């Protein structure tokens, strides 16, 4: 117990959780004993209101989904994604040359893709100046340092006619030790940065959990336009007070001389790059095109039945 409290105190800069201690004393006086106290405090530094403390610097665990985070996914690789035919057509006609025009150069990752990274996090809280209650937490994401606000004060989501943003509009509430966040008003974005689109009608549900010095985020994207089933992903970070966020100033410039209105894309059925990924991985093109069935363990039987796939 003492260890957990000490770590929490470090993360909070030495603050003492009076209500948490009061709760612990209450448990002790009720005869719950040391085991219950240890369970209560285990690995969960708490804020004054009793919720788990998520604040601090968090270091991304870079080995997760490394192909998303380093060289990036291959063109035409939609494996494991519950995409529909509309999403496939859009991705199959996508061309990375889109980033050669100034108006596309400074796009950050949207809130639902941002955790893929580079995504060290700096999490802080916004306090009501009078009650000192936490009204929101702010999450700064490493890549292009967008600032995301998650409101915890019960405010409603804005009108459907309000602007959509990269971070969307997020509200959260605690259920036990889990912060549940609902996000709407997202700009159109992507669920894989090889042209797999996510529409502006999507809704993001997240579960933020802290276990000792590990922060875990479970994210669920519901997109009625491009997904046949919810897309669930998770990421983890480790607490690191030394995490330092650096400013990122993107200046959009003409890098390739294009005619006004140039839009990079392939006509349907003409994209030669779609063959590279399935050829390299020795997969039929239909497998590369993804689908909800690929999210489930039973799909391994389908892969094993593919001619030559297991041997390769």
């Amino acid at each position, binding site marked *: 117990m003492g260890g957990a409290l000490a770590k929490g105190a470090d993360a909070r800069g030495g603050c003492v959780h009076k209500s948490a201690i009061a709760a612990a004393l209450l448990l002790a006086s009720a005869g719950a004993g040391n085991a219950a106290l240890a369970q209560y405090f285990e690995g969960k530094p708490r804020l004054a209101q009793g919720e788990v403390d998520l604040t601090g610097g968090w270091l991304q665990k870079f080995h997760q989904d490394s192909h998303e985070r380093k060289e990036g996914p291959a063109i035409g690789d939609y494996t494991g994604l519950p995409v529909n*035919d*509309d*999403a496939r*057509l*859009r991705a199959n*006609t996508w061309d990375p040359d*889109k980033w050669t025009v100034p*108006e*596309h*150069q*400074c*796009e*950050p990752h949207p809130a639902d893709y941002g955790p893929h990274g580079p995504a060290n996090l700096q999490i802080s809280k916004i306090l009501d100046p009078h009650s000192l209650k936490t009204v929101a937490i702010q999450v700064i994401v490493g890549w*292009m340092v*967008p600032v995301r606000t998650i409101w915890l004060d019960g405010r409603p989501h804005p*009108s*459907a*006619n*309000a*602007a*959509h*943003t*990269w971070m969307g509009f997020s509200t959260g509430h605690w259920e036990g030790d889990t912060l549940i966040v609902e996000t709407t008003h997202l*700009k*159109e974005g992507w669920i894989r940065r090889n042209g797999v*689109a996510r*529409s*502006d*009608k999507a809704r993001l549900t997240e579960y933020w959990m802290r276990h000792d010095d590990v922060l875990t985020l479970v994210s669920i994207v519901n997109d*009625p*336009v*491009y997904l046949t089933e919810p897309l669930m992903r998770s990421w983890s970070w480790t607490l690191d007070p030394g995490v330092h966020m650096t400013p990122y*100033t*993107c200046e*959009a410039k003409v890098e390739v001389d294009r005619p*006004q*209105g140039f*839009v990079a*894309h392939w*006509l*349907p059925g003409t994209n030669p790059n779609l063959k590279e990924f399935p050829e390299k991985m020795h997969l039929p093109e239909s497998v590369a095109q993804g689908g909800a069935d690929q999210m489930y363990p039973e799909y391994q039987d389908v892969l094993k039945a593919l001619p030559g796939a297991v041997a390769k």
Partner: protein
Amino acid sequence: MTRRTGLCLLALGAVFSARGAVPAAPELDVVKVRDNIYMLVGPAENTTVAFGTDGVMIVNTQSEAMAPKILAAVARLTDQPIRYIVNTDAHAANTAGNVIVTKAGKFIADRIESDSASIIAHENVLNRLSGVTGGDPPGERLGWPEDVYYKGWMDMHFNGEAIQIIHEPHAHTDGDSVVFFRGSDVIATGDLFAPGAYPVIDLERGGSFQGIIDALNRLIDLAVPDANEEGGTMIIPGHGRVTDEYDLVIYRDMLTIIRDRVRDLIHRGMSLEQVQAARPTRDYDGIYGSDAGPWTTRMFVAAVYRDLDRPAP
């Protein structure tokens, strides 16, 4: 309320419903864009309200039913008089409220303050609303935009900022204007842009698909985003939510991609029916398409086809 009273009210409600009581006009959704500029979202169209010490400018007046609600919303925002109305095209959805709104305004003209607001539009809008062109019967004269411009754009200084009213030839119609509030950094686009719907291409009133794409490209040049391609110049579309440059960009991208696809299918010799069956818009239909209502995806594809298939002027 007792159970019996509740049942009586339910019964009364059923009677009114059975007699077809006229439904009330829907409420406006009032969305703040800047401290001095609001977007009033009606059931079909948006109205822009800009106000300051000089008075109020209103961009588009929606329907007769919605016009009183626009006036009420303006009165809640400011006690200044309505000086100007701008019509971004001649369609009734944007001009039918002109008479009601202008009567509530006051325009400072040469040596007098008149009892109606000035109505500004491109000349082609006046020609259509007055029946000079287009064959439609003329509307009430008080609702005509008689403060017209003929070429390019019209400049004015109002409420301490420069305002440019810019003609976009042959876009949604042949009389389109976009209104650029330069100091506030807000652009009201009219119906050549709607973030959740394919644009209406009114070929009969001089519109063109390529003209809409050209207009969007010029708007992208005008708009300057803040950090991370977000915010900065705010865009009030003809209908739908308030937007910024990125929303314009992905809309332009979508239309350009559809243009290239349809043009390719035309070059392959496909008829309109074959192109519609090929569904060149299918990956965007979930965002912008509609199977019902006044402007369906089928109608949009037909307009694109006819526009691209006709000889260049």
